[in-house]
């Protein structure tokens, strides 16, 4: 028995182009759907089981398929939806195992005619996962459940070798069950299978023709009377290699349960992207938002599966005239609230609407950890972090960027300076005091009510004293004045602050803070009211 090198799990979604289309348009489930090639839209590349039952086959022209059944629903291959579906499948894998390989993710332009560019198949390092999920069957069940959550009906196979796992997953989907090959039993399980079953173990290779070459090998073996994997594995591997070539030798290792091909983990994407190409150009904002919401639903389902939230969005639009525009949308706090994100997208799109009809939409979400709800023994519970994040994002959409957050009085001497930081009450380190200790008598600090922007004022000065102040919304005789209090700050910057501040009680009863900007040389100009004592 060969030494064990680990365990592989394979998650396989057959008819992947159709599955991706159904994921993008769930209302088509149960319909006889055929997917044709994206360029000429004349050749059928994939068919749903319903369409297969009424005679549609890959390779037919669309016209031929429609002759066989006139009610076929025809969709051109949506490469954006297909790529998103493949990424979603990988996310399913990453939610179970940290090491995931996307199988046969050939570039679309390198795909053979009639062959889907994305295989709808992933491999996982399943070694030790049963400790997380209770058993190997638990791992398989988790994979199936999560695949279903993102819109896929998949098959799962788990074995020692990557090829055996792939073969098992393909058969599992057809039989509608999971296939768990016991450790060290790959060869025994494969022995009864026909040689054509090894077809799924052929990687596309550099030229994408591995499966075609294997068909030729199977024909040659058939002429020798070798029909099943067990008979093939019983042949001497040297003879197989010298007479039938490298591919046959590789397949012999698979059939003999000696497949030692390693997992080739794919990189974790920086963003989670969902996209779709539209049948016709969309020019209304409402229709566009309907599509964006659907994309957000799908991308957030993926983020939720990974226990992540969205901390930023990019909406990319391909317009009818071929141009592309992008709208980057900041999210104040990581959220999974579709309604809030849709509102943010609406705000961004309304602020700068596209100049032509939209043909393709893509939404990329920046993943981030959601805020954790850590209760404190000594502090009162605040708002729930998830809801707070959603509400903050909504408020930012309502009020605009930089209008919602935590106020900060920066260090310095400018009385009107302030900053706005993201609001995160859990980061506050101030020690709470008891309610009784916070009680004071009847005296408190006098607050300034800022006037933003400062209002230009007309100030009358007699014998060096302010006698009358007039500004938009206020005015009166100066009853008492205090000042000047000179402030010279940030002299090193391009906008230094050189001001003489005054406190003036006017005859209207208000006490105002006004200043004279010393940078203004004209005697009657440069007066501003920037606050009111209240």
């Amino acid at each position, binding site marked *: 028995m060969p030494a064990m090198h680990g365990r592989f799990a394979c998650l396989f979604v057959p008819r992947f182009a159709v599955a991706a289309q159904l994921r993008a348009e769930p209302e088509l489930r149960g319909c006889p759907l055929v997917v044709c090639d994206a360029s000429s839209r004349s050749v059928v590349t994939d068919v749903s089981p319903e369409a297969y039952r009424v005679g549609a086959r890959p390779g037919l022209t669309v016209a031929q398929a429609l002759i066989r059944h006139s009610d076929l629903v025809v969709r051109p291959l949506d490469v954006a939806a297909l790529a998103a579906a493949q990424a979603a499948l990988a996310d399913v894998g990453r939610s179970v195992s940290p090491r995931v390989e996307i199988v046969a993710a050939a570039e679309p332009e390198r795909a053979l005619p009639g062959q889907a560019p994305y295989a709808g198949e992933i491999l996982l390092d399943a070694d030790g996962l049963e400790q997380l999920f209770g058993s190997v069957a638990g791992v398989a069940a988790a994979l199936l459940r999560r695949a279903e959550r993102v819109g896929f009906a998949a098959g799962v196979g788990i074995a020692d070798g990557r090829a055996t796992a792939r073969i098992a997953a393909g058969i599992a989907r057809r039989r509608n069950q999971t296939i768990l090959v016991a450790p060290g039993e790959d060869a025994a399980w494969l022995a009864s299978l026909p040689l054509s079953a090894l077809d799924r173990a052929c990687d596309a290779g550099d030229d994408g023709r591995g499966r075609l070459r294997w068909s030729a090998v199977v024909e040659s073996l058939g002429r020798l009377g070798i029909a099943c994997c067990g008979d093939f594995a019983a042949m001497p591997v040297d003879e197989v290699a010298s007479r039938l070539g490298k591919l046959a030798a590789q397949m012999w290792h698979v059939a003999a349960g000696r497949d030692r091909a390693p997992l080739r983990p794919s990189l974790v994407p920086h963003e989670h992207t969902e996209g779709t190409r539209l049948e016709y150009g969309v020019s209304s904002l409402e229709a566009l938002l309907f599509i964006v919401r659907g994309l957000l639903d799908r991308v957030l389902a993926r983020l939720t599966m990974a226990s992540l939230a969205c901390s930023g969005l990019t909406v990319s639009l391909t317009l009818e005239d071929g141009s592309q525009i992008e709208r980057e949308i900041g999210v104040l706090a990581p959220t999974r609230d579709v309604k809030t994100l849709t509102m943010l997208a609406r705000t961004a799109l309304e602020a700068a609407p596209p100049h032509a009809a939209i043909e393709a939409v893509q939404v990329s979400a920046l993943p981030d950890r959601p805020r954790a709800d850590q209760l404190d023994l000594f502090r009162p519970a605040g708002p729930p972090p998830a809801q707070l994040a959603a509400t903050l994002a909504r408020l930012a959409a309502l009020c605009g960027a930089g209008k919602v*957050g935590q106020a900060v009085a920066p260090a310095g001497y400018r009385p009107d300076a302030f900053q*706005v930081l993201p609001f995160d009450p859990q980061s506050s380190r101030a020690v709470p005091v008891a309610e009784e200790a916070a009680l004071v*008598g009847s005296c408190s600090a006098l607050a300034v009510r*800022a*006037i933003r922007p400062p209002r230009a004022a007309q100030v009358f000065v007699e014998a060096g004293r302010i006698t009358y102040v007039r500004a938009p*919304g206020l005015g009166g005789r100066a009853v008492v004045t205090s000042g000047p209090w000179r402030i010279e700050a940030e002299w090193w910057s391009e906008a230094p602050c050189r001001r003489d501040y005054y406190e003036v009680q006017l005859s209207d009863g208000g006490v105002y803070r006004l200043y004279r900007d010393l940078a203004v040389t004209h005697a009657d100009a440069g007066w501003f009211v920037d606050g009111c004592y209240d």
Partner: protein
Amino acid sequence: MPIAPRLVAELNAHLPGAVRRADAPLAHGGREQRLATGFATLDVALDGGLPRGHLSELVGPTSTGLTSLAQRLLGHVTAQGQVAAWIDTPDAFDPASAVAAGVDLGRLLWVRPPDLATAFAATEALLTMGGFPLVLLDVRVPQRHAKSAGAPRGGPYGGSRMAGAPHVWMRLARAAAGSRSVLVVLQRTAHRSATTDGGPVTAGSSAAVRLELQPLRVVWDRAGGAPSLLDGLVAQIVVLRNRGGRRNDGRVLLEFA
């Protein structure tokens, strides 16, 4: 008489209100139902503070200490580790003053809506979410903004004409009741200058508490012929309404220095 009720009766005889059933409703005006303002004298006049789950209204002209009182309230709440929100329609919040009043800015959410209708929507969103024991809504809109106050896209608060309508205040009061938050609305009454702000937008009967600040004097330090120094303001708070409270005509002297 069974022993447990007898013991409870004895305890209550010595310590009134000390023992009660877990499911018994709290007495109206109890400390659990009121949020202390941070001013001991004002809390006495209000039977413990501002009522939770209700809308309270602070009204007064410029330079009567309205902002100082609100910031003191914020300071009192945030000092206890609770979070609060300031919906700042006129964009007049001064962080430095707030720090001086003891506000923990890390626990204060500052929202600067562009108009009154958005301010109402933001307030309702925060109240509906819950978790904010105090939400302050400053509706003192400068005159240049008053005419444009209104939601840009309609909605429940759409249009400047509807912004101060009674149903808006009822809606906010209901949201406050649902979250057990104290909603404080800062209002500008007719002022001696009368031109600074956009006129009163009163909450009317939706307010459970209505406090009016009346100016008494501005205190200047003019000792020894030196330049005058602003020492502070002295104002009087009149409790115009205290629904559910024992008294409705309290007067409290407050000093802001």
